[in-house]
């Protein structure tokens, strides 16, 4: 379980979030949401004062410490972790 594997991640923009050219990523299972947020912010060139939130199942935002291994084990559908993203609070 500690072995690092790639996790397939699919992103879906909600509300007025910037659209990404590439929506599918292969992320190391030991990487966490904090790292992923920084990475996607860089790709989008988001200004520092703008937020970026990720959601699972259009229900809740995973914590900065959730690894993609945990997200895969708990929430993957057909081996793919689907994340919605938004620059405003989308679901409570």
């Amino acid at each position, binding site marked *: *379980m*500690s072995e690092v594997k790639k996790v397939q991640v699919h992103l879906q923009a909600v509300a007025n979030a910037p659209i990404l050219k590439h929506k599918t990523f292969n992320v190391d299972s*030991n990487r*966490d949401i*904090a790292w992923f947020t920084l990475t996607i912010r860089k790709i989008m060139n988001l200004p520092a004062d703008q937020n970026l939130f990720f959601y*699972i*199942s259009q*229900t*809740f*935002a*995973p*914590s*900065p*410490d*959730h*690894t993609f291994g*945990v997200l895969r*084990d*708990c929430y993957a559908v057909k081996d793919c972790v689907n994340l919605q993203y938004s620059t405003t*609070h989308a679901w*409570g």
Partner: protein
Amino acid sequence: MDYEVCRKVWDSQIAAQITIQNRDEILPFYTMLPRFSYFSVVLQDILQFFTSRDNELNLDGEKIWLESKGVPLKMYIPIGVIFDLNNEVEGDTWHIVIKTSNAPSGYRTINRETMEQIYLQNLKEADFLKRKAETIQNMQIDEHRMLWDSICNNHFDDFWGINKKLMDTSDKMFDSIPLRVYERNRPAFKQTLLNPRNDSGELVTVGHAICQLLAISEILPTSTLISHGIRIPAETPLIYAAKNLTYPDNFVHICVLKND
């Protein structure tokens, strides 16, 4: 719900000595920190105490960060989990330093308002694991607010008045149990889908769940399972832990400590 256990867990506190970085002339602040709470919640009062004693003192609540024995303390994890994970000695005073230097990269200073959002997201995740978040989504916004306010104000009865809805299994058993397992010197927690019963219909124990999570065959006698500063017997049914040993975010947080 086992009232005695839930009440004891809620009431458990940690004695702490808080000092300010490079300000040895300022007397430390001594306090009891509720294990169930968050640094984002208790920090406001602590900072106020320091500034009320010394008008010249300028502590920016959005910039300071916390450290103990050289280890940065995360603001969005329950205080009790951080204490257990740092392997502090139960009963000893916890020495915490308010740091005013630049925070380590990735450190997040979190105010009470942001913490409320993070708390609610954790609570939603726990209910998502238990029953696809149906219970929490059927609650009023006011009820979410009351849960948070009762954490900030240390009101056990108000909290459980609402929390019991999230714990109710009279109609339907939980799909899976929200459990996070931490190990020392490992940055991330482990979490997976854990059914309260196994294929033979027997209750799954905390020990079995942790073995599954850590991909080990047994809990070694040299390992201790700790939650709320208490040693949790490996044979505790997972469903009992989910109903009586959770933190207010509805997760059971257990630290696996190896005694060398």
